[in-house]
């Protein structure tokens, strides 16, 4: 089980969290102007890197807040967590 450090509550078991997919996927400025393909890309297409990935988590069984984490998809190591609205930290 992963030990995920909630930016509010500190380290908690993975079972207390829900996964929210890729972080920093901006809502289109003018959705009506998008073609069907562009809209589908916004809705359904996500990065799938081997390595560092910025993703959203919700501490559903704790403080119930959404936050972001940078996780290495190959090792499951969590390199950083940061609160919603904060920029993605640069990881060397």
């Amino acid at each position, binding site marked *: 089980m992963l030990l995920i450090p909630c930016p509010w509550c500190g380290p908690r078991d993975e079972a207390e969290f829900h996964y929210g997919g890729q972080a920093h996927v901006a809502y289109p400025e003018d959705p009506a102007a998008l073609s069907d393909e562009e809209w589908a890309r916004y809705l359904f297409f996500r990065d799938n890197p081997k390595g560092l990935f910025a993703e959203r988590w919700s501490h559903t069984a*704790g403080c119930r807040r959404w936050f972001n984490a940078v996780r290495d998809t190959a090792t499951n190591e969590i390199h950083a967590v940061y609160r919603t609205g904060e920029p993605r930290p640069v990881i060397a």
Partner: protein
Amino acid sequence: MADSVADSVAEPAVGRRSPAAAFAARFEAASAGGSLRLAEIPFLAQINLRVDPKSPAAERIGTAIGVPLPVEPGTTAGGGDLEVLWLGPDEWLVVGPDGAARDLVERIEEAAAGEHVSVVDVSAQRTTLVVGGERARDVLAHGCALDLHPRAFGPGRCAQTMLARAAVVLVAGEDGFRLLVRSSFAAYVAEWLLDASVEYVAGG
């Protein structure tokens, strides 16, 4: 149990029954040995409060109830017969004695004075179970992943977490822990506590 649903709705204060009332005798038996204390504190007033902690309303509410809202995650603040639990960065649970809910809501709403604040009486949502005595941490450790050592989770700390896969609010006090557990989960958690306690209860 013969009361009809209509009766209980019309007169909620008459013959009310706390979610863990049926466990009173077994809690008492498990507490007899002295190393563990299980009990229910029924019907506490609980007000869920959401407000921007940096707003003037938050400060006014703290003054109105006599307890400043704790802003450090996972901490509690107390004063008089009230205790305020941190639930989130803009969310608290104000816990008071049985019967205090209506007055608390009024005082908080008055202090909020129309600002962007949510005040909800959730007293019926949860009941409170006491897990005290020297074995309290051992019992909880059967189903709680948090570090409950006083260094990490002593008096003044609270946490929303899972106990035996049930969502609870865990509060550390001077004389043990209190578990705020949803009414519909109270019987399950009570059974679980009694089961986890078997090895610590004198005489088995």
